[in-house]
């Protein structure tokens, strides 16, 4: 773990308020923030483990367990609701049953005129996602039914 984290710590050395940037880099590199990383981060930033743990758990974005092979985020906020996101969410949950995919709600992707909106991975966006389009996207990723 230490060898994985040291380059990240080095990047942010001397930065004011470095905790969130460090957590982002760790999640970017590993897909989540492992429990073993907490004491190392705490030591690096001269914080208590409880403080670091408190921050990780406070923010919806940070994950404490490894995600599935793909991460799919569905917008569940009002403008997407107005365009049928709830039906899509129900469909997606069914379609992804047993699949190695992490399905998460997200509250607005800034695509509110062209919803329902979906984010796959860190930056792949899709608009007007109907259940049919969702299936096509999942088939494209090779996600088995």
């Amino acid at each position, binding site marked *: 773990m230490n060898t994985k984290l040291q380059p990240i710590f080095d990047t942010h050395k001397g930065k004011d*308020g470095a905790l969130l940037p460090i957590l982002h880099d760790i999640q970017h590199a590993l897909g989540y923030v492992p429990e073993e990383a907490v004491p190392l981060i705490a030591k690096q930033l001269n914080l208590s483990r409880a403080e670091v743990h408190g921050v990780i758990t406070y923010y*919806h974005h940070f994950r404490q367990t490894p995600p599935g092979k793909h991460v799919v985020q569905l917008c569940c906020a009002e*403008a997407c609701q107005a365009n049928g996101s*709830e039906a899509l969410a129900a469909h997606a949950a069914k379609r992804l049953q047993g699949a190695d995919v992490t399905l998460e709600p*997200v509250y607005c992707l800034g695509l509110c005129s062209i919803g329902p909106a979906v984010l796959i991975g860190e930056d792949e966006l899709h608009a007007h996602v109907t259940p049919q389009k969702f299936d096509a996207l999942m088939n494209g990723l090779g996600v088995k039914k």
Partner: protein
Amino acid sequence: MSITIYIPGDAAALAMGADAVADAITAEAMQRNIKIDIVRNGSRGLFWLEPLVEVVTAQGRVAYGPVTKADVPELFAAKFLQGDKHALRLGDIETLPYLAKQQRVSLRRVGIVDPRSLSDYLAQGGGKGLARARKLAPAAIVQQVTDSGLRGRGGAAFPTGIKWKTVLDTTATQKYIVCNADEGDSGTFSDRMLMEGDPYCLLEGMAIAGLAVGANKGYIYVRSEYPHAIAALNAALKDAGDWLGDFSIEVRMGAGAYVCGEETALLESIEGRRGIVRSKPPLPAISGLFGQPTVINNVITFASVPDILAQGAAFYRDLGVGRSRGTLPFQLAGNIKFGGLVEIPFGATLRELLYDYGGGSRSGRPLRAVQVGGPLGAYLPESQFDTVLDYEAFAAVGAVLGHGGIVAFDDTVDMAKQARYAMQFCALESCGKCTPCRIGSTRGVEVIDRIRAGATEQIPLLRDLCDTMTYGSMCAMGGMTPYPVLSALNHFAEDFSAVKAPLPQAGEGLG
């Protein structure tokens, strides 16, 4: 000579398939041995036309849209590179009524300028505000902003000049400029469009703020849901060179907490802590980031400043109505036919936005309710569609303009369900500091569930609860959640009377 083609790199355009179109155009041009130069611009904000491709021809920029990758060979065959006829040809996009009727100020370069090029920004009139500010005394810069009548565009509409003056009048050696780019409200994307489509404008506004108050360090706090905006800002900063002088800016990424859009929670988050709201006073202007005097403003607030400096305060103040001066970039979202960005001076009506620009619902059914100002904003019924778009006129009908997000719903909407969602969102996003918000929102979900299951005698209880949240919460998260809830109850009472849903099972929630 190579031909310049604009294909938006804006997140909405990407979501509509702009990258695939860019790839197809590159491949087709290569095959035909035509030299082209693709610029990934921002979006013009007419999303039903995305991906919108513009070709620079002898007749000027000629637009085609919405283009799919399958259209590309045909477009080449039709000689679109010379601006020739094709079913998708729109001509000069600026002559379309949707754009021609707007009066863009803050977002006037978005979709036009190359967001990756400082020299293009300067060529398009950028930089003049900063150049002027450099010749003025700090107090004179603040005076310009005060005289413009600019009020914060993040939601609370506080006069920007007054905030800046407070920071200027402090004596600290270290002060900060913080840009609130958390844009968490559903139905809003103007900050995103500006950051992706004209990032230098934001940097310029922040640098001017730095000169105005004596700060040399700025932070832009961008939500993690906006990876493309973050990339655009970082690219712009990398190429800014010494244009910003000794003012330095760092981009910080949020982590999916709506309440971190509240200014003091945002400062906590930059400092590396949980985004818990601070009690005021002290104001951030006196003791903000790392305990130092801090200007914190919304993206659009900063982006309005360069033109105010360059063209003078009067130009901005002369737009608008009442105490709402200048323009607001409205965002038409939800179930709307022509969704997009509409920047106009204050003073039009909601109805004009919904029908003259928006063309009514996307589904073709009647519009029934419109939520204005994000998740903490009221739902307006048809009878209020003639309300003038002005902060005070909205306040007078128990609503808010907020950050200008307009979310339309057709007549299939269940307003009791929307009220429930408002409470649930508050429960999910509450920072937990005060009881009315933390506990009240959860109780609110439960009460609405019972009402929806037929216990209409609990409606007074819901009103009491809203009262407690309104008057007992420390910030607008708990304090304004009653806006959507009570407006739904007051204007759409019928949705709360019939049995709509059985009581949900414990733990049942949103997808």
